[in-house]
């Protein structure tokens, strides 16, 4: 057997010996190859394309109005001021209310939380039942649900107005929550159904032999296995509902109850006085903050969940 103590110096000698300069070990790669230049060049251009508007927004929101009127939108602020942010949050006027976006923010929160909780809870049970407890007509039921996902919202806008009015919910936050839950149902049910369908059937059978029922299997076996898909569903719902403008403007009748997006639109589009670009930018950034935080916080889980649902489903 060779002694490693004697082998190591030999290898070192070989490495510096030019006579033994034949290919060995990892192939050396050029840092500035044509491929790399193309690759990183494209990446940088695309990244700039997306980052530049964000940069402009941030710097503009930190400038005072006189500085903005000088016209150089790319210049960093000479004097940083948080006044526009404060104004956007607490003082900007829409209609008769002058308490800024904070009112819209809390409205949105009050819409978001029940909508997300109810839609994710119902969709997960839907998906579970449709994949594990197939009943007569379950496929038909699922198809009908899927058709719902393909009908353009515009077609249903007015019928829903009538339905909500008849139910006495038109203009209320409850009505809007109901609409969000209903419209989130097809895609989220599909998501959960595909995910649960990817869980081995034998696991479900084993649980049945072990005496677990519908809810027991759902809560004790399936739920602990499905964190990724819950995260995906949560993100889809949070961003979708937070970013919604159409339903908010259609089904909420009073400016007091407008969600943040609608209020943002009203602030930015108000025609009175000077256009306060810095306040508008700050207001827009404030509105986008929630989805942004959600993405940053759960990006990795999101990708994993999407992949799990897509590949195995």
């Amino acid at each position, binding site marked *: 057997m060779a002694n490693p103590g004697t082998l190591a110096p030999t290898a070192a000698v070989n490495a510096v010996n030019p006579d033994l300069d034949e290919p060995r070990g990892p192939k050396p790669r050029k840092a500035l190859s044509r491929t790399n230049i193309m690759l990183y060049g494209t990446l940088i251009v695309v990244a700039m394309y997306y980052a530049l508007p964000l940069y402009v927004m941030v710097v503009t929101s930190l400038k005072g109005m006189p500085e903005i009127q000088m016209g150089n939108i790319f210049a960093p602020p000479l004097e940083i001021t948080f006044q526009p942010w404060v104004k956007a949050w607490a003082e900007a006027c829409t209609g008769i209310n002058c308490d800024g976006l904070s009112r819209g923010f809390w409205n949105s929160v009050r819409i978001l939380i029940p909508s997300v909780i109810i839609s994710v809870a119902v969709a997960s049970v839907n998906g579970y039942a449709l994949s594990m407890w197939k009943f007569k007509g379950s496929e038909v039921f699922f198809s009908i649900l899927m058709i719902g996902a393909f009908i353009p919202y515009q077609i249903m806008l007015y019928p829903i107005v009538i339905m909500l009015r008849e139910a006495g919910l038109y203009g209320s936050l409850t009505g809007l929550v109901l609409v969000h839950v209903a419209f989130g149902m097809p895609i989220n049910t599909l998501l959960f159904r595909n995910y649960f369908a990817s869980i081995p059937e*034998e696991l479900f*059978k*084993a649980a049945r032999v072990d005496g677990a029922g519908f809810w027991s299997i759902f809560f004790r076996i399936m739920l602990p296995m499905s964190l990724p898909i819950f995260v995906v569903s949560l993100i889809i719902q949070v961003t979708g509902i937070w970013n919604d403008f159409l339903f908010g403007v259609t089904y909420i009748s009073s400016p007091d109850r407008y969600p943040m997006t609608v209020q943002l639109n009203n602030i930015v589009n108000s025609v009175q006085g000077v256009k306060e670009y810095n306040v508008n930018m700050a207001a827009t950034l404030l509105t986008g903050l929630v989805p942004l935080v959600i993405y940053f916080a759960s990006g990795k889980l999101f990708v994993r969940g999407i992949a799990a649902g897509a590949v195995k489903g």
Partner: protein
Amino acid sequence: MTNSVEIKNLDLSFGAVKVLQNLNLNIGEGEFLVLLGSSGCGKSTLLNCIAGLLEVTDGQIFIKGKNVTWAEPSDRGIGMVFQSYALYPQMSVKGNLSFGLKNAKVPKDEIEKRVARAAEILQIEALLDRKPGALSGGQRQRVAIGRALVRDVDVFLFDEPLSNLDAKLRVDLRVELKRLHNQLENTMIYVTHDQVEAMTLADRIAVMKGGKIMQLGTPDEIYNQPRNLYVADFIGSPSMNFLEGALEGGAFRVDDMVIPMDDYEFAGPQTADRPATIGIRPEHVVTGELVKNAPLQFEVAVDLVEPMGSDTLVYAKLGQHSFRIRMDGQARVKDGEKLSIGIDPSRASLFDKATEDRL
């Protein structure tokens, strides 16, 4: 022997497809019954019906004399072991073992006792706090067996439990299963497509095809007296040699060969002349010194030789029929060689060509 599981006139269809047809089966107390068949023969379906995981279209199922046709799986007194182990991934081994007992509201100290006993029998005491992900395939299947064990059931159902294991482990666990059956003396119903598992484990084997039981019998009966052509062909590896000819005046004739069937035990009195097929197992053909003593001798031309270590499989031509012969592992045979072989007609199987039933 009292019946542990009784299946009466069972039918199961998915839409227009009949998966099980008028199936009757009695399984004795403490019996190890293997359901054997190729994929799609309905063996797993039958097991799922017994477990209550599939609703039957017609017929009845009794376990320990109780009609359980409509009963929930957990109320049938069965434990089931699956091919893919089907362990709950988020629970520890202990959690997996006790899940069914908790559902059945068994008192805590009783759960502890039963889990400890099952762990001892299966030698998994050291693994109780691990998650299934941290176990090897063999350990996982042991836990899966343990999950059935703790529930103190009358009948164990196994759905191809060894198919996901590698070859060596499969043999080890097979031996352990047999030992476990000897120790527990429970009724066990075991589904497999592996005839070696079936032959080694079973008290009785039910060979299934197309939703019907082709033959139900001891491994010895299945191997030596296959009741029809399908069973004869399915059991045995390499499979039986078949020669098509006719039964005429108490002898089997194929081309110009005559095989006298005087010593053959006919299954019934139906010995009238008719077209027939004779089946001869490759391992029942003798060569070398033994040929002299054989009742019947032939000469064959060797076509191809497959040495397998323990024995040698020779593909030869008998007349113009291909014929497989299983020889000793030390046999040195070359392609194209002439070989003398001996056959004992009393060990052969004779089938009616039209009905494919044993004569």
